[in-house]
């Protein structure tokens, strides 16, 4: 299949598992803690990061041969910040509700280590199409972990998923039942513990990851 050669396959699907930005490279942890109390913001954040990392990768890859080496990090940062501001402005104009939900997370995207990491490590030295796939792959790899963490935290912390009640109201102690939400799940520390658990399981299953 010429459309996806062995290398491009690796670029696109590697970050989902063997080369995952969160559990293997341990990047983007800060936002993984901040937005995973509920599933919905985690999903939106995952999608937003995927789009922005792919777009930034494409732009940096396009201009990679013209960038002066000494200010390359600044140029990357300017591109990312401009893209994020642009997306935020467009959302405010055409999808106000989404923009309000994202409010702080939009700013968090700029500081996400995955973006700078991919721009510096991949887009600076690779062709446009490969860079685009690399951005998509890493974005999805990030989103998967976020969704896994948020799933656990929202289910056990609030008894809901995407805002819908999963654990019946009648189970709760307040209503004469036996169940109580786990308050720890709402704390950022618990996100770190869950991420740690995922890393443990992942390395147990993939012996080649060091």
């Amino acid at each position, binding site marked *: 299949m010429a459309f996806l050669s062995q290398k491009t396959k690796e670029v696109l699907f590697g970050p989902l598992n063997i080369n995952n930005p969160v559990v293997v490279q341990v990047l983007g942890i800060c936002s993984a803690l901040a937005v995973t*109390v509920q599933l919905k*913001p985690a999903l939106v954040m995952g999608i937003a990061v995927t789009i922005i990392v792919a777009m930034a990768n494409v732009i940096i890859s396009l201009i990679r041969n013209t960038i*002066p080496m000494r200010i390359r990090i600044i*140029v990357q940062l*300017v591109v990312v910040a401009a893209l994020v501001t642009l997306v935020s*402005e*467009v959302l405010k104009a055409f999808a*106000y509700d989404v923009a309000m939900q994202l409010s*702080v997370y939009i700013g968090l995207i700029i500081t996400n280590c995955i973006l700078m990491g991919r721009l510096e490590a991949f887009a600076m030295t690779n062709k446009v199409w490969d860079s685009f796939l690399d951005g998509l792959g890493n974005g999805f790899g990030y989103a998967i972990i976020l969704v896994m963490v948020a799933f656990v935290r929202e289910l056990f912390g609030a008894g809901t998923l995407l805002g819908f009640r999963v654990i019946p109201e009648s189970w709760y102690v307040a209503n004469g039942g036996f169940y109580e939400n786990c308050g720890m799940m709402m704390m950022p520390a618990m996100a770190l513990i869950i991420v740690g658990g995922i890393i443990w399981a992942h390395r147990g299953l993939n012996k080649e990851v060091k």
Partner: protein
Amino acid sequence: MAQKKFVCSVCGYVHNGDKAPEVCPVCKQSGVFTEVKEKKGLDTNSNAYTIIYAAIIVVIVAVLLALVSQVLSPRQAANKLLDTQKQILVALNQDYSTTDPAALYLSLVNDTIDVNGAPVYVANIEGETKYILKLHGAGLWGGIGGFLALDADKNTIYGINFNHESETPGLGAEIVTEKFRSQFPGKHIKNVAGEVVSVAVLKAGKLAEGQEQVDALSGATITCDGVSTMLATNLAEYAEFLNQVDNVSEANQQREATDVNEENQQREATNVSDSEQEKEE
């Protein structure tokens, strides 16, 4: 640093240095090196190039963002206005899911009074006058705000709506939910003496003295304290307006009472029990 590149025409070995070596170290042939010129005429590492490049990038980005901002700002302003209108409709307990919110808003809200620079919206619902006050304060991570709808007596809460910038999802952010908001309607913001004392947001089990209260959200103490403080300070700012229901002859006494109220309010914001003792004295 002006290194030149030489490539061996036999084996392709690249040598970096000032001049070509006599013998290729890889294939041991002599006189086979040719200099490789940089593909571009520009040296991308020179100071001049770096400065010009930075300037151009910044100008392009600035122009692009300014342009986008200009083009989109009318739409954004319209969205913001609509959002305010929707929030006021929520405070007025109106369901706008099946109708056009802007039209519904215009049919209900028919006047805006300016009180010391803060707007008070006047609405008419089924023949009854409602006053809507704008609230603003601080939560845990950022600003919180909202709209408080009062009955014509300027005492009974008709409805309330909260918004927040960045409270914790699942904890502080729950102040916007129906479950929290529905505690407010029917509560009174004045005490028996007619002084504006606001409504306290307290942990279940605690009792407020001299004012009515609603239950705080568990796990969101600071946000709920913020809501409580916001209500107290904002209502104190509106106190003069809120006291205007009384007779004109009492206006002077009323004004004095207002001043005392404001002091009480401020103390209450920090320590409820202190101000209570003050009143008893």
